[in-house]
């Protein structure tokens, strides 16, 4: 069994969402950047930006991510379940094959969308 995921970056941090939570990928427009959503400083030099739209049941949300953006497959042997220390918003970590590579953060789509909605309501 393998999972397909969309791989992208938030600044220099590699991230992925499983395609089951993916509703679309378009050229970047004027949505908020994922770094703003996560409260991180934004990497203004990023290239190949895209707007990613996620959906979880009735919740839909879009944000800009940094490239390169690509579809990848994740094997169960590459995945590590996120511990309680990983905080919220992460369902698993993906391990890349190259030595010294940082773990790939596999986002919790439902949590991200709920957080985005709460942030919109608060603003």
């Amino acid at each position: 069994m393998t999972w397909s995921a969309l791989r992208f970056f938030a600044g220099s941090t590699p991230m992925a969402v499983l395609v089951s939570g993916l509703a679309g990928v378009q050229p970047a427009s004027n949505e908020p950047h994922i770094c703003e959503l996560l409260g991180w400083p934004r990497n203004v030099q990023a290239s190949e930006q895209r707007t990613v739209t996620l959906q979880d049941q009735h919740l839909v949300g879009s944000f800009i991510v940094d490239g390169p953006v690509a579809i990848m497959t994740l094997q169960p042997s590459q995945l590590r379940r996120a511990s309680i220390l990983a905080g919220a918003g992460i369902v698993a970590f993906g391990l890349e094959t190259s030595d010294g590579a940082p773990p790939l953060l596999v986002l919790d789509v439902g949590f991200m969308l709920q957080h985005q909605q709460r942030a919109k309501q608060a603003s």
Partner: protein
Amino acid sequence: MNDVDAEQQAVAAAAANPSASTDRLAAATEYLVFQGRAALLAIAADQIVEIAPRAVISRLPWPPRYVAGVCAVRGRVIPVLNLDDAIRGDMLRVETMALPRMVIAQFDELEFGLLAEHTFGLYSLRSDELTPTQGTLYSARTTWRGAALHVISAEAICAAVRLPA
């Protein structure tokens, strides 16, 4: 009285009162002493899993307090803690993230990395040398080679990082 006489007297005293000698030995614990960015730290040797070069750290969204991020170490994904900030009470600093190695420790099945500039080695500290502290990530402090040494409480760390930020 020279050193040999003193040693002989100590051996004789220990032989005369073996329970006292055992108590004294039992109160001594081995600690790994290491240098963080801003502080001299120690952690009980039986909680150490390994000392590894620092890998690339991934930042986390909404991380628990003191968690700088996660890194991959030989197939495991380990949260990396920034205890310098716990001492100084300030925000995560880039200089801390650049420290070259990690002391990887485990408590209650929870593995975590502590960033370190330098490790000094294992040293035995007696409980009567330590001043207990409360309400922090440190169980005690003492003076070691003329500097303040903070003894890390893995139990307190695990409790603290499991709470919301």
